[in-house]
């Protein structure tokens, strides 16, 4: 059933595209792909830190009253200087009352590395990242997908600007004309490429970040048009361990102009350490 497999690959790829890459950083100030916005900053998780995102939620309403839920438990580690390594297992729930289609399952294994090249001075901060979505789970892709990205952050007195550009490599998908899309079409599909800009402003005494983004992406499915998206979101430091986030966005162009909502929380802790023996 190659055709069905490709459809499922779309489902599995949903969270990869939504998150662009896994991301997790300790505090509210370090934005993170998908939490709440797709566009992130150029800084990696602090060295020797561990961040657990228990159940970051993404809810999407797409055409026909169809809803899709995605949860992606993940673990992030600041293993090396300026380097974060992440692994997550996206779980997808599809609810399409019109066709009585209800499915749930793991949608692959998601791994990524973000490497911050420099700290911002008069030069912007840059980062590069790579990621992969591996086949696993009932809704996972048949083939592995990889991606590479470049991130830049520039700070101004009142706000910061982040720019991301990402490419995905892997099998391109084709759906026969008129074929029903089991998961709601191109709302969460993989991107052949993605580029966008986010602006954020901090309320430092409230430990809160307000952000907005706009980005474009070319779907991985052949024949589907370029898609523009916009979103706003906030990150908030609830206490010294927990950073919460929430965001909302909308697909501005394309066949499916649905909206999406994200909600999550990340718990931070340190990596155990002992002095080196002499």
């Amino acid at each position, binding site marked *: 059933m190659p055709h069905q497999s490709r459809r499922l690959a779309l489902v599995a790829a949903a969270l990869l595209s939504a998150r662009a890459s896994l991301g997790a950083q300790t505090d509210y100030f370090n934005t993170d792909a998908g939490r709440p916005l797709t566009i992130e900053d150029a800084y990696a998780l*602090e060295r020797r830190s561990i961040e657990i995102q228990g159940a970051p939620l993404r809810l999407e309403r797409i055409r026909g009253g169809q809803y899709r839920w995605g949860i992606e438990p993940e673990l992030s580690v600041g293993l090396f200087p300026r380097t974060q390594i992440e692994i997550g297992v996206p779980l997808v729930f599809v609810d399409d009352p019109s066709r009585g289609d209800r499915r749930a399952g793991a949608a692959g294994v998601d791994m990524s590395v973000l490497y*911050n090249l420099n700290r911002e001075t008069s030069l912007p901060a*840059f980062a590069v990242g790579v990621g992969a979505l591996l086949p696993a789970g009932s809704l996972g892709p048949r083939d592995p997908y990889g991606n590479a990205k*470049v991130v830049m952050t520039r700070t101004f007195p009142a706000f910061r600007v982040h720019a991301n550009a990402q490419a995905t490599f892997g099998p391109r998908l084709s759906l026969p004309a008129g074929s029903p899309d089991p998961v709601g079409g191109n709302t969460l599909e993989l991107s*052949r490429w993605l580029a966008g800009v986010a602006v954020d402003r901090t309320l430092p005494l409230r430990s809160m970040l307000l952000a907005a983004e706009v980005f474009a992406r070319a779907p991985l499915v052949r024949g589907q048009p370029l898609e523009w998206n916009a979103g706003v979101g906030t990150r908030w430091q609830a*206490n010294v361990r927990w950073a919460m986030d929430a965001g909302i966005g909308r697909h501005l162009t394309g066949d499916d102009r649905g909206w999406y909502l994200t909600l999550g929380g990340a718990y931070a802790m340190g990596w*155990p350490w002992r002095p080196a023996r002499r």
Partner: protein
Amino acid sequence: MRRIFRLPNQLVAALLVAVLPTRTATAQWSQVYEQFYLQAPHNWTFRTEYTHADRLFNAFDYGHAILYETLWRKPEAPASLLEEKEYAFLVNRVLVRPPRNPLEEAAIEPMYARLAPEAKMMFDWAHVLHRQLYDILADERLDQATKDREVQRVIAYYKSRPDLAFSSKPKSMALMQEQPYSLAFRTKYPKFNGLIWAYHWLQVGLYEPLMVGRTREERQAGVRATVSRFFQMLDDAPRQLPHQMPMTPAVAPAFAARYPEAAIVFDNLHSMHDVVSDILANPSVPRDRKRAEILRAARLFKDDTSYVMGSTEAWVRMSQHMGIENMGGPAVGFIPVMPTPSVTYGAVMTHDDRTGEMTGFKYGSATGGDHAAHGAAAPKPGSATAAHAGHTAPAPAPAAGGHEGHAMPAAGAHDGHASPATPASAASALHLRMLGDSVIRARVMADTAMHRMAMEAMQAMTPAEREQMMQRMHGAGHEHGVMHGSGGAPAPTPRATAPATARPRRAPKAATPKTTTPKAAPARDPHAGHGTHGP
């Protein structure tokens, strides 16, 4: 199936080449990185146990950050922007309702963070050390041996980042206040500078009640009292604000004696805070040189060779000679009245780096009738040695904090047995009588100038009277620990000290006087006799 390899490495390379073609760009290339604090069961204990004090540190983060951001971004702004507007916001809003969480300073000082991220991260890393030490000392589950072990572990973790860690060798004050750019901040912004020094007073001072409190209740009461004292400093700024940078051995002697490495790091940290302020505030440092100057200072504060004092003892002695009364006074055991500074605001004393002894003034002067009485010849501006020529090097002056915990006989107890020694003079009797009063005694002990005078007055007394005076000043045994100018190494174990409470502290009930011969030689006030030097 088609592989997509768009947007490859060429894009990254093109971006980097576009911004990195020059030497200037290379100098701006910074790869400093953040690191998580040491994971441990005591993490954030201070936050839980001493919530209000912990939140003040969040407020301090704001104060430091807005200062640097303002100095860097608005160099032409009138002094009132910091001295009035920002100061008022800090004192009336931020300190009154401090933030619940540690602040992200890069969000408050975005442009300064861009200017010198390396220096910013040095501060952040040292602040992490601060907080982790509070956590250990505040953790009631840990016994003293475990606390000692954990402190050493946290210090080792701190030093595992040599690119960020301040040296744990004591640095001369010359590094802080005798550089070409020095004093710009304190002279233009005395109130804000005093506020920063008050911050630093509390940051090191809060260790003291945690160290000397014998029970959880005493530690709690002590922390409350120390915090109250901090707010008292703000009542009449800048008069009641510290006139000198608070030094850890003077403000927190028990802490400095037990954990000298940490105390030295904090003094170096606080010195560099002043250095960065001076570099930013001094227009003689061109804007395109400020980053380089800050990084140079950072290097000097990190290495173990530049501007290093002769010994830890010399650092302790230097701290004593600077005068606890000039630093906001002791952090525990203080009396309601703030100590009277014995130098002009922001005075720069010079010290012998080998011994720590004060050698003169480079800027400012001693104040007060007693100091003036020493009437040194008017010095030439900038000449530190001229004014002190012929002066005997001052002996170490006991710091008030070092006397905390001495069993001071209560007034009533002495009233009852004052008769055995017959004063040879009315003056001696008056001295003894006055020192029998706990409030007067505490005041004398908290003021190095008065302490010196009392010690000098003893020279005219008989041995028996002298012994009585020593007992009243220092209690039974009156041994002098490290803070009493013995010059010895810091004592390994801090004295059990009655903590300060929210109310003025009362001296403990009398200990039985021991009939030992006083061993402390009369100490001279290090500020005495020094004349005024022009800036």
